């Protein structure tokens, strides 16, 4: 090779090298999941007045991922005896919650808290009543292997799914994973990612209240009066500073972004001691978090009885009565509770209006949405 040929070759080589390094260094796409995935991107439509949804970069929504997630959500093979799926404790008819105070696992053992409703979870920032999971993917890991729930160790769970590809009567999960994630190797991480994708599209935004906010319908006088009460401070102003004889709901069940929850953790005065269930303190170890639980959304609240973290109240009337009483004092009870000033002091008629408003948050189209039903 003569000397005269080298400079252009070197220049070309350097140029290509620079391009290669440059593209790798500057491209924000980190190719996780694999760049060569053939899954079809799914665009989630954000409903009016809702905030953007933060979707993890490593788990973008895809048509195939969502459909796989739906199959897995309703897959009874993910329990040790093949009798339970996630959907067993999150019934559509109950607003994707459990109508029992505590869910019963495959061994007959019961949990210690009410199964939370599945609705608009893509906007939440912490999961479980005590917030011990900070992502949907992390949350999904727990029920499958929990001995009081589906009781199937994850290594066995993924093996069952992997083997289902060999039986022609079963769903060919390896192929489904290949479509969704460009791999036939099933892992707990990919199972949770698929289910999380499915849960993120479970969006409720077509209740009567939503329709009213969009100007498509009217609220009755009682419903509107209940909404106004929802937005007013509670208590008699003669006794409770700032009281407006309202329901005092909006502080915690914030209507910001139409979430009807601030997703924070509060002690709402159910108990004075917390030896049975420390709530958030069980996660943080901070005694000031004792008795604090996640504020649930009010969406579909009329469908998701029983109420509170332990399902102690069977009806919305009982719930309102609790807040009307002011709750029990403790060193961590939320300052919004009127435990030392006689409670909310709502009349029976006012309570009925508040409940009428809560019923406007029921989204029957959501619970009947065929995209969310059991496909098996």
């Amino acid at each position, binding site marked *: 090779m003569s000397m005269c040929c080298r400079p252009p070759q070197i220049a070309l080589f350097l140029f290509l090298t*620079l*391009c290669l390094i440059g593209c790798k260094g500057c491209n924000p796409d980190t190719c996780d999941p694999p760049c060569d995935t053939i899954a079809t991107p799914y665009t989630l439509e954000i409903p009016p007045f809702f*905030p953007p949804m933060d979707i993890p970069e490593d788990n973008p929504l895809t048509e195939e991922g969502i459909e796989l997630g739906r199959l897995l959500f309703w897959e009874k093979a993910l329990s040790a005896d093949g009798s339970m799926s996630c959907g067993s404790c999150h019934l559509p008819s109950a607003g994707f919650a459990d109508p029992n105070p505590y869910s019963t696992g495959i061994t007959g053992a019961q949990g210690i808290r009410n199964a939370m409703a599945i609705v608009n979870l893509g906007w939440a920032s912490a999961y479980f009543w005590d917030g011990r999971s900070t992502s949907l993917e992390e949350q999904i890991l727990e029920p499958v292997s929990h001995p009081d729930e589906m009781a199937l160790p994850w290594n066995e769970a993924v093996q069952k799914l992997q083997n289902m590809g060999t039986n022609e009567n079963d769903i060919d999960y390896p192929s489904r994973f290949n479509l969704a994630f460009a791999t036939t190797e099933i892992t707990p991480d990919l199972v949770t990612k698929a289910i999380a994708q499915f849960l993120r599209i479970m969006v409720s935004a077509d209740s009567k209240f939503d329709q009213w906010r969009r100007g498509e319908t009217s609220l009755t006088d009682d419903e509107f009066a209940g909404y106004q009460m929802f937005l007013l401070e509670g208590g008699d102003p003669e006794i409770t500073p700032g009281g407006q004889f309202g329901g005092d709901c909006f502080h915690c069940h914030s209507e910001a972004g139409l979430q009807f929850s601030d997703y924070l953790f509060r002690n709402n005065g159910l108990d004075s001691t917390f030896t049975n269930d420390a709530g958030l303190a069980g996660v943080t170890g901070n005694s000031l978090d004792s008795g604090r639980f996640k504020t649930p959304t009010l969406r579909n609240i009329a469908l998701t009885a029983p109420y509170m973290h332990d399902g102690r109240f069977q009806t919305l009337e009982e719930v309102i009565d609790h807040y009307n009483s002011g709750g029990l004092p403790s060193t961590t009870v939320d300052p919004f509770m009127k435990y030392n000033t006689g409670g909310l002091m709502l009349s029976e008629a006012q309570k009925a209006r508040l409940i009428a408003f809560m019923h406007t948050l029921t989204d029957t189209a959501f619970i009947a949405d065929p995209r969310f039903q059991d496909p098996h």
Partner: protein
Amino acid sequence: MKNLFTFTVRHVQALAMALALFTFVSCDNNREEEVLPGSVRIEFNHKWNGEESGIGEVLNDHLNHPVRLDNLQMYISPIELRNERGEWIEVLDVALLDFAIDGQRMTASAESGTYNALRFGMGLPPEINTNIDPASYANEHPLSVPGSAGMFWTWSSGYVFVKYEGKFATEIGNQLLEPLSYHCGTDESYRMVTFDFEENIVIQSEEISAFGLDFDAAATLIGPEDSIDIVQDPVTHSAQGTILAARLMDLMDDAWTLNPL
């Protein structure tokens, strides 16, 4: 040698062009590496009677009531520096301080120059307070739905400017069971805090100037011109026609000190 030199120059030129093209086409997000004019770092600290204190500690107020602050959050908007021409230069538009989280500090870029004063708004100016939809902000923004969690009232009443929450006891030795809940907001509660620097600060290109702002939560209850008895006035939600929130904001106006770092 001449030929070789000519050849090399050509190819250096070709390489330079290729490099320039590559930089232009494929490194668009290198913009974040642009050199900032200069930076200001502000560290916010929570104190009680001039002493370092943490959220959740039981302390005594000026009337000897045991008090425990469980939550102290505050919107600051904007933060501005005054240059030698007397112009206020914004360095930060809005921030939400949460004193339960250690290390409340923020760094913002600022024009290089000499500054003789700092001011910041406690709360939110009217144009970003009421009739604002939090859902219109990106989720990372302090006024967004998740960013403002617990600090948004309603579309008409806007945001809570300051949350000062906790428990107190009426006497030493008693359990802390009485609720303390000061939620200050509404446009009328917005206050501007101004500090003239004893010595001008000079912000230089690519350098960071730092100072601390200490908020004395005890001074929220007693100041040079007013004091509040938490037993008599334990709660405000800034309802129309009440003055407690305005009194608290006036007291908070005097509760800040500026410290060079």
